[in-house]
């Protein structure tokens, strides 16, 4: 990485991002699934 770049976020914060991505995906898939059930 560049020495003059912004400071890196901590590993723990990055891991929180990764978990949040996967949780959001699960929620979106659940919403899409529920969407079809509600309107079918």
């Amino acid at each position: 990485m560049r020495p003059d770049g912004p400071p890196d976020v901590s590993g723990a914060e990055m891991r929180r991002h990764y978990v949040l991505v996967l949780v959001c995906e699960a929620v979106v898939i659940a919403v899409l699934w529920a969407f079809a059930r509600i309107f079918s």
Partner: protein
Amino acid sequence: MHIIDWAVVATYLVWIVWDGLRRTKGAKEIEGYFLANRSLPWWAVGLSIMATQISAITLVGTTGQGYADGLRFVQFYFGLPLAMVILSVTLVPFFYRARVYTAYEYLERRFDLKTRTLASLLFLLSRGLSCGVIVAAPAVILSIILDWNLPLTILAIGMPTAIYTMFGGVQAVTWTDVKQMAVIVGGLLAAITALLIGLPHGVGIPEALQIAGAAGRLDAVDFRFDMRQTYTFWSGLLGGLFLMLAYFGCDQSQVQRYLTAKSVDEGRHSLLMSAYVKIPLQALVLLTGVLVFVFYLFNQPPMLFKPLHAGTIEQSARAGEYRELETEFGRAFEARRAAATALVEAPDRAGRAAAKGTFTAANAEITRVRSRAAALVRDVTGDDTYRDTAGDTPRPDVNYVFPTFITTKLPIGLVGLMIAAIFAAAMQSIAGELNSLATSTVIDIYRRILRPSETDAHYLIVSKLATGAWGLFACVVAMFAAGLGSLIEVVNRFGSFFYGSLLGVFVLALAFRRANGAGAFVGLLAGIAAVAVFASHPATKGISFLWQNPLGVIVVLMVGSIVSLMTGGRAPVLESSKSEG
């Protein structure tokens, strides 16, 4: 097209080219030209990553898919968020710390020159041809729908893109991508608004969704495990995961985007942006198509959307039969409209169940008439593409649904905005590809093999020439590809042959410390051969192409590790001293 729409399209083109050309001051040396001196913010890079994926054919094809088959297509992207997380943990930091220009440069540091060169040549061949297809596909659709001259349409899409990419480099690509994404999303939202306004009195968003649900258009998630189906939860999540890993981790057109970010974490954030946004964005594009379907329940659509063969049918001996089918289609449309209205107005659950049955039968009748029309077109013209269907729509019609709606149903001004959005989608993906093709040509081939000791100024000139040459090449390929449907398929299939295998080489590099250049090179060739056999063998060719990617990875890992062990394992060479870059 009205003169105001022409003005909107012309304004868009002038604005984008001007915006791209004013970025030339950031491209005074080769690192600035190809990597923006690794200075871009994560959000701009993230938008550019998404922009490179959304080609014009994605925009019109995905809305058409939504019309024909509902939201099912969204499952194709279920592997993407997980792929982004895996890449953020593994390949992204490797690429950053290696300070490479191309993904393939890393392969030389880890393995040898021949593996790097083979990977680079495969990318150049596949992406060079597919860039021509990306120019050709929207040009063909726009020329048919709007009766434009095809070669001029190809040049109108390809040349402005090549010019601003050639002079402005990656800065021009990224910052025009940001604006082009705004044009596309703005255009889609305007189209959705127009669609909802165009629905009859008493049919609002809940009623439209109720009808779409009754037609099965909202079935987004299919949990069946069937490897022959591309659009299921498991194919998308597992098969799609490998495709997305290969695309975002090994394809220079994507890797180069996040190498322009300020730091490794900004690069990671740019990828995670796609992880958050891609599935909802694809769902929005598909939902637009679903709303077009609902719109055409109350406004009569053409029996077949692709108008190319209308003249041939009209002059054939079966013209009378086709006109009778059109009359039959009109009656079936009226019956379906009445059934849709009854469904919306049903007072209770029992009434809705009865109305849904009537509506389903009426919709099936429309499908039956369309199938007969498609068979007639196939018989008269010999166009075998009418044999396939997407959902309940003849396959060739899918890409013409949304452009037909745009040009015949949208108000003046909005037509121009949507045509500009189609141009934007085409140009943003072409620009990203031209830039990455030039990078790999100059960094992996010209600077590494042909002329290794020239000045930075020399490489900068060659880079601009290479960008222009690839732009010209894409336009020439587009001229030929436009008339050859099967060639387009061959080009797309060629890319899928080596994607998984290329990913396998990177996994081999990271996961097997004893893997060497001989193992990687032979493994890559074996992986490509295995996928080619798998894709064409009668017993396996029905399996969805998404599963070719995991196969390629497995074959490369097996053959690569065995050959590495047989040839003495990894040579004890310091990684940082092996490549000139």
